[in-house]
């Protein structure tokens, strides 16, 4: 398959791009909610509109009411989300939680999927337990208790946790903390007794919770997939989420880069447009090159994952790491080349820098994924 979008995908990209620019733009969403100190950090009306666009259930199977689309298509939407810095539950609900729920029972799908598809429900995922992404080590415990389980432990960096109707929690049902097996995924309703949320605002204005589970009683039907067999589903979630975050990162990078190159063509100093200075031209061209490479590896990894190829896992980490590097470069150069106004809140370039920082950390930063590439390559 060639490494560019098919006709159908190009059409999706066109409609997603128009929609997000009109409805999801920075003034209408990110600044609007931030300036009102919104406790969700996103707009529910936009989430409904995204449902009407068919985005919310795009990764779900058709028999479950979804569109049966893949990582390339989800990435198309996420690139536009990234370009517009649009706060929305799409990545956590429609990509991460949806990937988990695909493995749920018919009963569980019936409980949660219609709300997701309609844009009524918001879901979160609770994986990290410390300040860094370390999914190989899961200490939150779920012990057998009657017909169900009792959940004890704590999770961090649960994006939109306090706004969610349900949280997918990765917990340990057997084995040692860093053992591969013995993980079980639970769908924990928001109002379950013993769930204590401590939501905090992050640098990019999004909301994330520290969550404590203090002996939370869960029915057996809260289990997603198999007891002790959650690692495989968790890995599928991580691949989908990392690919999604990488695609969003490409959007952040391109948004910041386009803004910056426009600025180089407008700002005058020493009687010249600053874009005439070779000192800036070469840096801009280097940035362009890095962002192009990041785009290429993202679509490569998406296609491999959609084809179920064995190398998809490796290329997903390559993509996440490469995007982190390229988008980081884009926002740093963006702020620097904007000069003084790049430091002002009024100008949008700083918002790109903040979003990139949070997005880069989500599901593993460049160091985490480069290390993973080395391990998977055998060194």
């Amino acid at each position: 398959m060639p490494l560019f979008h098919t006709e159908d995908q190009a059409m999706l990209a066109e409609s997603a791009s128009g929609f997000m620019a009109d409805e999801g733009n920075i003034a209408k969403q990110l600044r609007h909610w931030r300036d009102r100190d919104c406790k969700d950090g996103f707009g529910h009306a936009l989430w409904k509109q995204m449902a009407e666009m068919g985005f919310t259930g795009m990764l779900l199977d058709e028999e479950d009411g979804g569109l049966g689309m893949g990582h390339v298509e989800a990435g198309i939407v996420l690139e536009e989300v990234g370009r517009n810095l649009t706060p929305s539950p799409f990545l956590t609900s429609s990509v991460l939680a949806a990937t988990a729920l695909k493995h749920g029972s018919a009963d569980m799908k019936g409980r949660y999927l219609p709300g997701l598809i309609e844009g009524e429900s918001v879901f979160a995922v609770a994986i990290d337990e410390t300040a860094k992404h370390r999914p190989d080590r899961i200490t939150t415990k779920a012990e057998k208790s009657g017909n169900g389980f009792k959940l004890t432990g704590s999770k961090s960096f649960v994006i939109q946790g306090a706004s969610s109707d349900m949280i997918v929690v990765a917990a340990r049902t057997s084995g040692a903390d860093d053992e591969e097996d013995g993980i079980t995924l639970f769908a924990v309703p928001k109002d379950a007794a013993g769930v204590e949320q401590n939501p905090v605002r992050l640098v990019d204005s999004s909301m994330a919770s520290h969550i404590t589970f203090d002996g939370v009683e869960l029915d057996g039907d809260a289990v997603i997939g198999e007891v002790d067999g959650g690692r495989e589903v968790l890995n599928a979630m991580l691949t989908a989420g990392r690919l999604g975050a990488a695609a969003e990162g490409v959007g952040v990078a391109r948004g910041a880069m386009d803004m910056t190159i426009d600025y180089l063509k407008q700002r005058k100093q020493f009687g010249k447009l600053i874009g005439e200075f070779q000192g800036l031209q070469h840096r801009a061209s280097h940035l362009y090159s890095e962002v192009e490479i990041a785009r290429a590896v993202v679509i490569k990894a998406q296609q491999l994952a959609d084809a179920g190829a064995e190398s998809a896992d490796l290329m997903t980490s390559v993509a996440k790491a490469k995007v982190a590097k390229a988008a980081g470069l884009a926002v740093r150069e963006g702020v620097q080349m904007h000069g003084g106004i790049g430091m002002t809140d009024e100008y949008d370039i700083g918002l790109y820098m903040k979003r990139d920082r949070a997005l880069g950390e989500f599901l593993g930063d460049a160091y985490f994924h480069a290390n993973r590439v080395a391990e998977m390559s055998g060194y």
Partner: protein
Amino acid sequence: MSDIENFRTETRAWLEANCPPEMRQPVRDDGDVYWGGKNATFKNDAQKAWFEACVAKGYTVPAWPKAYGGAGLDAAQAKVLRQEMSRIGARSPLDSFGIWMLGPALLKFGTEGQKQKFLNEIARGEIRWCQGYSEPGSGSDLVSLQTHGEDKGDHWLVNGQKVWTSYADQADWIFCLVRTDKDNKYQGITFTLIDMSTEGCSTKPIKLISGASPFCETFLDNVKVPKSYGEDIPAQVGEINRGWDVAKYLLGHEREMISGMGGGERTAAIGASMKRLTAKTGDDLDPVLRAELAMFDVDALAFTAMGERFMDEMKAGKGHPAQPNMMKYTGTELNKRRHELMMSVGGSRALEWESEDTGGGKPSRNWLRTKANSIEGGTSEIMLNVISKRILDLPGA
């Protein structure tokens, strides 16, 4: 069976019958590469047999028309031939700047007479060509070149000096940029074909930091270049004073060729093989070096995907026409970084300049060779200029 599958079957059988086993071994030294030309000698009978079989079949230049010594293969057939040759590890029967550079220029700008004569000579490996572009005072600023051709009626009297002429000391002819109008910078250059056995033409090899001498200085002192080599065979390609167009086309072609070298050793990840190398010498990978290798591998694997996307987009007529400049810039910088890391992993062993262990100092000589990657065929800085101007549309670029 489809036509293309039939072609694959035929090609496989032909290769089986004609490519000697010795010609399916990896190239070990310079003698394993056949460059053709008047003074060429074959290293052994197998090299000769393989070369002659390919000439007869048109496979030294498979995509050129049959009338010019090629096999007239279309793009799909040429790809099959490449695949089948690489499947058995077949060596290239003939390497030549005539094939890579002059040929494409003649196919685009040449007269019928020029094509008949020069393309057939190239395809049969009879004439070895070299390229005369750069001058001591004209590197990146190529268009400032001074080598002058004075109009003497039936001939040009050429005076000047060229530099970085690849293998000029072994070449028979040179395609050369000559200033034929001093008052017109861009439209005063003629793309001229010169027989290097003409009086006044001499060469001197340049020894590089790697110890090798693949390049020469070429001196042109009162060289009389006839304006015509026969009916419909002018000495210049394209029109007189319009050689810059031909040169620009070829530079684009060259960058595309360099940037198209995606895949293979140039872009592969290296961490795993570096780990094996340290195990062999009884060393451990320093953790910081390991981290650098990991970051390199991320960039290398991502660049491989970029190469694939670049080729896919080119084939589909998508993608920016100036994108080869980006590929050349990123690919060559990556390759330099690769060899820096390989030297660091190799430690003191990689410093050996002449030992048998290192195949005569391969690690250090190759490392030094890569420094030219981002200079030859347009420096990285020139590539960045082109991206600024043609892709980013920055003012005054």
